[in-house]
């Protein structure tokens, strides 16, 4: 396969130093409580004076209030990720490209979901983040297509075609799953055998584990049957091998929680997990927190590798999610306590 061909030299010092400098510009932890005490216009102004200035200024003519913030955040995320692609070369560029395919998957899912529910092209485009290989122009043309066949034809040359080839406009869950699986199998295949890359493999596998854990929690809580759950899980994790996934998906809720005690992630979530828990919010926030802590830790093990860049991408995404959580929480007048629980810091 073409994407498996390794590229020339490894140019990490430049990009890792640059990414570390970019990381130092992210909002510090102390800012979030401050944001919690502001109203939406104040938050918009605060954000407009920070790294998001360019995006807020650009979009201020078109949108206002909450819409402005939402769009500015999305655009900034896409711009930041595109910048990483622009300033990297060779191997880091290749690995970043593969990692950012996540957003292609996200966008394809968004478009298909939008079409499924009969949303307008503009509504769909409001939710896309053009950070992957599919640019905003391509996404616009795809979102404007009326029939599923046209969309399929537009994506015929992309690696995602295999997942959507048989889609006929019906239920989406199977397609979404297939897309996730394609993404992770490509990502795992893209990583080579050098020391830094072995560590990145560990990181990706842990990410798959955490994703599987979330899926397991959600599906168990929703009471899905064994085979349906197993279909949803992504193979290739670190601790949850195929056998573990099969076993975990077949266990009833209480045994499932007990079974989790055998894995290292248990110590992270044991505080909030109980048999009669009603909300999965706490568990998911803790898992996200663990992912961030892990990325940050592992990025120091081998600094001249893709790991600091993964760490940055995760943090940037998290910052944007946090701001969005605060703003949306404020909008619907959620108590501060609940908003704080949703924040990953």
């Amino acid at each position, binding site marked *: 396969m073409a994407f498996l061909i390794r590229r020339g030299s490894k140019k990490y010092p430049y990009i890792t130093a640059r990414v570390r*400098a970019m990381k130092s510009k992210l909002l510090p932890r102390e800012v979030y409580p401050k944001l919690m005490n502001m109203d939406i216009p104040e938050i918009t102004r605060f954000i407009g004076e920070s790294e998001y200035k360019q995006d807020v200024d650009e979009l201020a003519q078109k949108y206002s209030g909450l819409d402005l913030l939402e769009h500015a955040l999305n655009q900034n995320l896409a711009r930041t990720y595109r910048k990483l692609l622009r300033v990297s070369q060779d191997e880091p560029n290749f690995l970043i490209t593969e990692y950012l395919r996540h957003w292609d998957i996200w966008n394809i899912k968004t478009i298909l979901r939008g079409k499924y529910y009969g949303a307008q092209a503009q509504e769909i485009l409001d939710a896309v983040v053009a950070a992957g290989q599919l640019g905003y122009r391509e996404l616009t043309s795809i979102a404007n297509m009326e029939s599923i066949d046209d969309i399929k034809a537009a994506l015929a040359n992309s690696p995602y075609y295999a997942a959507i080839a048989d889609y006929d406009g019906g239920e989406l869950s199977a397609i979404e799953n297939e897309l996730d699986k394609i993404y992770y199998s490509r990502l795992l295949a893209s990583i080579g055998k050098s020391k830094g890359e072995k560590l990145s493999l560990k990181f990706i596998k842990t990410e798959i584990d955490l994703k599987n854990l979330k899926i397991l929690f959600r599906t168990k809580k929703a009471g899905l049957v064994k085979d349906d759950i197993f279909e949803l899980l992504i193979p290739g994790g670190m601790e949850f091998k195929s056998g573990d996934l099969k076993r975990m998906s077949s266990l009833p809720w209480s045994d499932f929680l007990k079974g989790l005690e055998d894995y290292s992630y248990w110590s992270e979530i044991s505080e909030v997990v109980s048999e009669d828990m009603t909300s999965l919010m706490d568990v998911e926030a803790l898992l996200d927190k663990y992912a961030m802590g892990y990325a940050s830790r592992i990025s120091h093990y081998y600094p001249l590798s893709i790991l600091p860049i993964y760490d940055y991408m995760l943090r940037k995404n998290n910052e944007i999610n946090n701001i969005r959580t605060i703003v949306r929480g404020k909008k619907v007048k959620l108590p501060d306590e609940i908003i704080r629980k949703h924040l990953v810091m």
Partner: protein
Amino acid sequence: MVDISIADATVEQILANQKGLIAIGAGLAVGLSGIASGIAEKDIGAAAVGAMAEREELFGKGLILTVIPETIVIFGLVVAILLLFL
């Protein structure tokens, strides 16, 4: 081909030969240490430029860190001077 053997060489020839070897040694000391510091500076320079591109105020620090491996070539130069003049 001219056959030169040490036994036939005059004292002046031998001294000239030794001077030549000293000059080669001095050249190697500077040349190799120059290459070595180049290799060492390559990554530091790239990293410094990367950091500077995001934060201009890092220029001073970046510059200083980049030229630290210059010491290697200075050692080479000192050795070369010692060889040639002592």
